[in-house]
């Protein structure tokens, strides 16, 4: 149905795809897997006519094609369901479903009654109860996805592309989706299914293609590969090479940060946590369990309604971020663009931002000294950039993250809190960040890592504190740390699956 051969694409000097091949056949579900940054999304957008390839050929239904606009690919029968839905919040469900394919009466006018009827019929076939008269903005995310899928059914779809469709929906809804995809497949539709959840790929796919770093690694029938084989193809190395060795068992480190009975209105109830010098403590739990809020409460970034914090056995009254920083505590926030980096400034300015006094002389910033520090840190953390004067916005996510960690490591003599430190960075940069975190711990700093990625928690943490619905539900250390144990504490349902956790395949 669709064949891509030798497709390359670069964005302002960054190679996103280098000569990839991919073919999707009618009546098959073809899974496309790969790490973040492997080039999956770029491939989809090339197939859908959003991007034009720099080189290579697209063949659709046996004919070479060159999409110049998304509309051309769409009219040819390619329908894409993006991770970010293409829905118009002020239009109703029915209007969204038939947008671009309006139901019309014989005078050529939009037939509102028929639009509603047909939409209701489509939704019923999908097995969902959604009122077609509702504005889409009032639907749940899962319902919005069902509207997206109904849109594909309206059009004569020949190739359906889904980008991480199960990232936003529950297990039951995913089953519904799979059933619908199987029906489409039986009708001869080609389906390209992008996901990094290997379980579902083994459940529904006929063939699987692996991309890594913008290149094609392999295409196999699903029966020919095992889960572990897929992982090593995606990651390009064995899991044990990703994480640096943990702190050898022995005497636990000195408690540097101690928080007790912390409450944050509506989010955290009477939670306590300790972080020890020389160790990495992970704060694990489902998204929304109150981990960030607890850490922010300790740091003074959120108002607490109860609780005490000790730094180096010294009780700190009325914590604020300024006091915390002065006491040697650093906080790498999750949203590095919104709360962390000054994107338009250069590396040097960002590295020294939390501790300007170190580079200030007579009230003026000493640029030479600042650049010196930056150069040192660039080397230290292997930050890939053209030098201290590189604008942060032009760098990759992983390197941006290293800049932030470098900044905070400079001021955090005692405790460094990192909130989802590897979100959105590729596996290479992850490995680097892990190495940096371990290095900081070995220097005697207490590292507190908030993470939703179970493999990362298991691979990195010397000690794990698990939260559930605002309270600390348990603590694990040493050999007791396993994905199952953490999930069980995070959900209080022993043996529960981990569908809501993200990241590396489990």
């Amino acid at each position, binding site marked *: 149905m669709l064949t891509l051969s030798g497709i390359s694409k670069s964005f302002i000097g960054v190679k996103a795809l280098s000569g990839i091949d991919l073919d999707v056949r009618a009546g098959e579900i073809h899974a496309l897997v790969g790490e973040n940054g492997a080039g999956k999304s770029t491939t989809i957008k090339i197939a859908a006519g959003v991007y034009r390839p720099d080189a290579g050929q697209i063949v659709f239904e046996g004919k070479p094609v060159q999409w110049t606009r*998304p509309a051309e690919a769409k009219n040819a029968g390619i329908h894409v369901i993006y991770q970010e839905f293409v*829905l118009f919040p002020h239009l109703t469900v029915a209007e969204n479903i038939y*947008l671009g394919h309006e139901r019309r009466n014989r005078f050529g006018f939009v037939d509102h009654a028929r639009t509603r009827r047909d939409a209701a019929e489509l939704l019923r076939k999908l097995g969902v109860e959604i009122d077609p008269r509702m*504005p889409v903005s009032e639907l749940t995310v899962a*319902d919005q996805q069902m509207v997206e899928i109904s849109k594909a059914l309206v059009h004569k779809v020949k190739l359906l592309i889904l980008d991480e469709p199960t990232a936003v929906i529950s297990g039951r809804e995913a089953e519904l989706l799979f059933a619908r995809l199987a029906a489409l497949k039986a009708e001869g539709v080609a389906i390209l299914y992008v996901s990094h959840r290997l379980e579902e790929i083994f459940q529904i796919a006929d063939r699987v293609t692996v991309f890594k770093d913008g290149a094609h690694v392999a295409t196999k029938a699903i029966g020919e590969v095992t889960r572990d084989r897929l992982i090593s193809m995606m990651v390009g190395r064995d899991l044990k090479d990703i994480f640096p060795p943990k702190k050898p068992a022995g005497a636990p480190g000195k408690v540097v940060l101690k928080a007790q009975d912390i409450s944050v209105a509506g989010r955290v109830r009477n939670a306590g946590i300790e972080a020890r010098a020389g160790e990495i403590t992970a704060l694990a739990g489902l998204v929304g369990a109150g981990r960030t809020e607890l850490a922010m409460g300790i740091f003074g970034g959120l108002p607490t309604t109860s609780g005490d914090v000790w730094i180096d056995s010294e009780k700190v009254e009325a914590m604020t971020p300024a006091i915390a920083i002065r006491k040697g505590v650093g906080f790498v926030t999750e949203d590095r663009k919104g709360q962390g980096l000054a994107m338009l400034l250069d590396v040097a300015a960002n590295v020294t931002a939390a501790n300007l006094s170190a580079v200030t002389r007579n009230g003026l910033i000493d640029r030479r000294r600042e650049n010196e520090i930056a150069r040192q840190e660039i080397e230290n953390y292997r930050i890939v950039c053209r030098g201290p004067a590189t604008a942060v916005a032009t760098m990759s996510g992983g390197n941006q993250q290293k800049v932030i960690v470098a900044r905070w490591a400079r001021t955090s003599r005692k405790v460094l809190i990192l909130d989802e430190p590897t979100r959105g960075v590729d596996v290479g940069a992850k490995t680097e960040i892990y190495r940096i975190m371990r290095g900081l711990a070995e220097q005697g700093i207490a590292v507190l890592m908030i993470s939703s990625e179970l493999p990362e928690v298991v691979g990195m943490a010397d000690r794990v504190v698990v939260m559930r619905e605002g309270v600390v539900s348990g603590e694990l250390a040493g050999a007791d740390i396993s994905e199952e144990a953490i999930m069980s504490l995070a959900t209080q349902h022993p043996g529960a699956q981990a569908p809501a956790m993200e990241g590396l395949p489990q």
Partner: protein
Amino acid sequence: MSAIAPAQRPTRLRNNQGILVVAALLVALLIFGAFISDRFRTLSNILNILEQSTGLALVSLGQTLTILTGGIDLSVGSLISLLSTLTSGLIAGKASMVLPVAIGVLLLGLLVGIANGLLIIWLRVHPLIVTLGMGAVLQGIVLLYSLGPAGAVPPGFNYLAYGRLLGVPVGAIVIVVLFLLVGLFLRYARLGRYIYAVGDDEAGARLMGLPRARVLLTVYGFSGFCCGLAAIYLTSRFSVGQPYTGLNYTLASITPVLVGGTLLSGGKGGVLGTLLGVYLISLINNVLNFMDVSTHYQLIAQGLIVIAAVSIYVEKKKRV
């Protein structure tokens, strides 16, 4: 998750709320006016209000569509000035010139609007800037053409502004018909639907392959055409065009649109709200007249109303 919670009810008329608010305000003002002056509640005064609102209604009609797409047309004031001056200037008192000049003026308005649209599409510059620049260019051109009132119109040309059909002002009838047609277009034509879609989520519209260029050319072209209509009407009303005829219409045309509940960010609203907004503004001006205060208060009132309208209708940012 896919079952509908009982609390979620479909909101049927998207712009219901705004329209109800404006309608309530209209009624309140009518009652207030009736209290302050006997002359206010006469039929002839009401017809006067309808008559005087024609120019504003014409420009606001075009403006509604540009705002629905998330854009705006700030060239309307200067365009009206130019077209109005050209109307009387080119007719120059000759009855035989009325029809060709009227057609020419409407075409020119349409072309200027399409030029706005093309610049927005080609240059990928925000409509605010494109039309603001276009407005300055047009104002310069009209001043090059004439520094003051130009030409004249033959007797009878003022029928448009002052004529009555079965006792009802001609302008008011034209307005109701035009608004009805555009309202039906928005509701029943595919392009009408795409106007909402482009305003709602422009990037999404592109991904869906909706004809964004056609939408923009339509709305800006139509806005220019409406300026042509307004220019002819105003020339008829004042018997001559001059380079500042349209001066206040840029802001004035936006006020009723926003008062009528159309979102400045686009994607939501409609022409019924705008029409009620036009009547509300005209009524306010009329009441201010009867209160015997300086006409400059009309401008002050309008400025305050537009700020209030936007702050009332602005959508609360959804929490993620």
